[in-house]
């Protein structure tokens, strides 16, 4: 993988992950910080050095592991950075394999970000799914196993669609596997299959139900990783191949609203955040669908900002879960006295996702909405603005309010356990919170990384214009008025909401029912029929032959049998019943036979 001194950051993480379990305990913590930092520095060293690296000749193909350009860099930068933050957040976790799974998962994401062809993409795509499922299983609750299998099942289905698409494409193009703009003007069945593979990882309805299912059940640190990588890698893949694919605009808008609706109903803080990932990724999908330079810049910028603020939100709610063991609003409330710092960090995440001026979402999300207005897709732009009111309503208001204020639903045990989390978790949240504000206040930091520089510079002059600030503040603050007026309606209910995973969860049950009831019934019928038609005549015949055998043949055979039993008894005495002796006797016999054969 190393050509011209180019080192793949995934390689650093994979090798790092494989060495980790063998290190002495005192070395582990520094090592956990050093490895992702090396990967981050590796990515930084590539800045400005665009080109193709790491080309490997394999069978008939040239596999490209390292395509470096502006689009690659912005995603690689934020993903390696998030890997450092996530690992620091999980420093207290002593189970090495959680770190190994997380790093392999990030390595999968980075592999996709850097790959230049579909074969390498597929390889790393699957690595992502198979590494991340362990972050669910390591929660080790009784239900974790089932959730993990569902997650794996859905992702395997998506992977198969992708594989089928790329095989068809390989055939149709006469052997072209390069991963680039796929030709959205002239889509074929292979285009749609590849798109379905990507859309499933981006959690676009109807392929989205795996996301809240898995992220709500993942380990505290696992969810911090999962919320950053799978969906944003899919956004990268869509931006690379499907920019300007029109159907992505309505799909993205539906996603943005769908997530908002389910977030209203949700009682579990982490599942609520998961539904808001769907909502936020909807903006990015719509941005890719709009496909202009401003929109693609917006999708990248929003993915960048989203990884940080969503990571921060999952860290905040994860801290509550880590300390109290609870993540449902109906088990929490009034915790500001016990976990004040976690509250402030989570609030910063909430204000960032809501796109408050001076926070990161403000400079990224608006770019996509502006691109919608510029292209005169007014319905999409207005509906995305509507969804952003919903974002503030839930993540900015509902999550902080019902965990840290509101009615105190904590049991005595929960209340006693609640406190701000260990230093490493606070440090990780602090770094993420700082970056959320820094991105919002100092736009060149993010804008200088975006793929279309001229467009980014132009937009930088507009983003803090009076009109945009006034528009955003009005929407957000009057949403807050609505929240406080209707707060009784929003009181959490101890319920779950049925989503489209119903079909495969109940479908699986339907299959069992089918196996248990009709198929087993048919099997019984056949058995009964066989008993009457086959078994009874057979038994009668057998009884006759048994009588014949007993009285006629045995008399003759008994004498013979006695002799055989005598020899058998002799052999039995040489057998101790232990396997090694049997093997020993057998080998000895073969050796003696060989010697006889050779010398005789």
């Amino acid at each position, binding site marked *: 993988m190393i050509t011209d001194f180019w080192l793949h950051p995934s390689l650093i993480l994979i090798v790092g992950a494989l060495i980790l379990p063998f290190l002495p305990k005192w070395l582990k913590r520094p090592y956990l910080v050093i490895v992702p930092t090396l990967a981050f520095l590796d990515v930084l060293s590539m800045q400005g050095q665009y080109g193709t690296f790491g080309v490997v000749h394999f069978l008939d193909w040239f596999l490209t592991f390292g395509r470096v350009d502006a689009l690659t860099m912005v995603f690689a930068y934020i993903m390696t950075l998030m890997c450092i933050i996530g690992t620091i957040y999980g420093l207290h976790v002593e189970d090495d394999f959680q770190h190994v799974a997380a790093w392999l998962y990030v390595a999968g994401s980075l592999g996709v970000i850097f790959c230049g062809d579909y074969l390498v993409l597929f390889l790393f795509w699957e690595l992502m799914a198979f590494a991340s499922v362990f972050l669910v299983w390591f929660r080790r609750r009784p239900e974790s196993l089932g959730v993990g299998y569902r997650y794996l099942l859905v992702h395997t289905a998506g992977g198969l669609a992708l594989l089928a698409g790329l095989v068809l494409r390989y055939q149709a193009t006469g052997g072209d596997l390069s991963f680039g703009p796929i030709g959205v003007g002239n889509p074929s069945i292979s285009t749609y299959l590849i798109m379905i593979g990507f859309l499933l990882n981006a959690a676009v309805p109807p392929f989205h139900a795996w996301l809240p299912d898995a992220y709500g059940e993942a380990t505290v640190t696992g969810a911090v990783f999962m919320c950053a990588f799978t969906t944003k890698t899919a956004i990268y893949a869509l931006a690379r191949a499907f920019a300007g694919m029109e159907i992505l605009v309505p799909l993205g808008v539906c996603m943005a609203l769908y997530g*908002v*609706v*389910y977030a*209203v*109903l949700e009682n579990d803080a982490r599942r609520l955040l998961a539904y808001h990932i769907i909502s936020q990724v909807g903006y990015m999908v719509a941005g890719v669908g709009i496909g202009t330079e401003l929109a693609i810049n917006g999708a990248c910028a929003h993915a960048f900002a989203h990884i940080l603020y969503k990571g921060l939100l999952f860290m905040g709610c994860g801290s509550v879960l880590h300390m109290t063991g609870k993540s449902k609003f109906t088990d929490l409330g009034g915790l*500001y*006295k016990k976990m*004040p*710092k976690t*509250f*402030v960090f989570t609030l910063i995440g909430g204000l960032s996702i809501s796109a408050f001026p001076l926070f990161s979402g403000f400079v990224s999300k608006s770019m996509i909405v502006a691109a919608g*207005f*510029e292209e005169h897709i*007014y319905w999409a*732009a207005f509906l995305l*603005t*509507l969804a952003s*009111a*919903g974002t503030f*309503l839930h993540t900015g208001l509902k999550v902080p309010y019902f965990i840290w204020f509101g009615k105190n639903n904590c049991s005595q045990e929960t209340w006693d356990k609640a406190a701000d989390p260990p230093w490493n978790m606070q440090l990780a949240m602090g770094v993420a919170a700082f970056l959320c504000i820094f991105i919002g206040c100092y736009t060149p930091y993010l804008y200088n990384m975006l793929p279309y520089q001229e467009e980014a510079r132009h937009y930088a002059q*507009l983003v803090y*214009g*009076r*009109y*945009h600030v*006034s*528009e955003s*503040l*009005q*929407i*957000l*603050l*009057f*949403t807050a*008025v*609505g*929240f406080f007026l*209707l707060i009784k*309606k*929003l009181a959490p*209910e*101890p*319920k*779950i*909401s*049925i989503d489209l995973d119903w079909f495969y*969860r109940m479908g699986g049950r339907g299959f069992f029912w089918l196996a248990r009831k009709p198929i087993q019934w048919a099997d019984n019928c056949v058995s009964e029929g066989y008993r009457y038609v086959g078994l009874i005549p057979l038994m009668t015949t057998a009884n006759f032959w048994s009588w014949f055998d007993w009285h006629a043949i045995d008399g003759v055979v008994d004498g013979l049998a006695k002799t055989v039993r005598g020899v058998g008894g002799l052999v039995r005495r040489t057998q101790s019943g232990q396997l090694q002796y049997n093997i020993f006797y057998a080998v000895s016999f073969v050796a003696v036979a060989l010697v006889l054969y050779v010398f005789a």
Partner: protein
Amino acid sequence: MIVKLIDFLRDRLQLVIRLSYVGLALLVAWDVLFVSKEHAHTAVEHIPGFWAVFGFVACVVIIIVSKWYGHLGIMTREDYYDN
């Protein structure tokens, strides 16, 4: 420090609420009087306080529609999927 600040504000809740309303009014006034509408994308945005009304209505619509949808039978008991 954070806890003290929050308690300080909670002790004066009515004042905080009144100040918030004043802040909202000032925001709309600033928008109507001093913010140029040259960057507006559509004609409706020229209506004074359009985005304030939009934000409020959006919030109410989202809450009511979602709750209505949830109570159609989408929200169900927590052990629904247990055997």
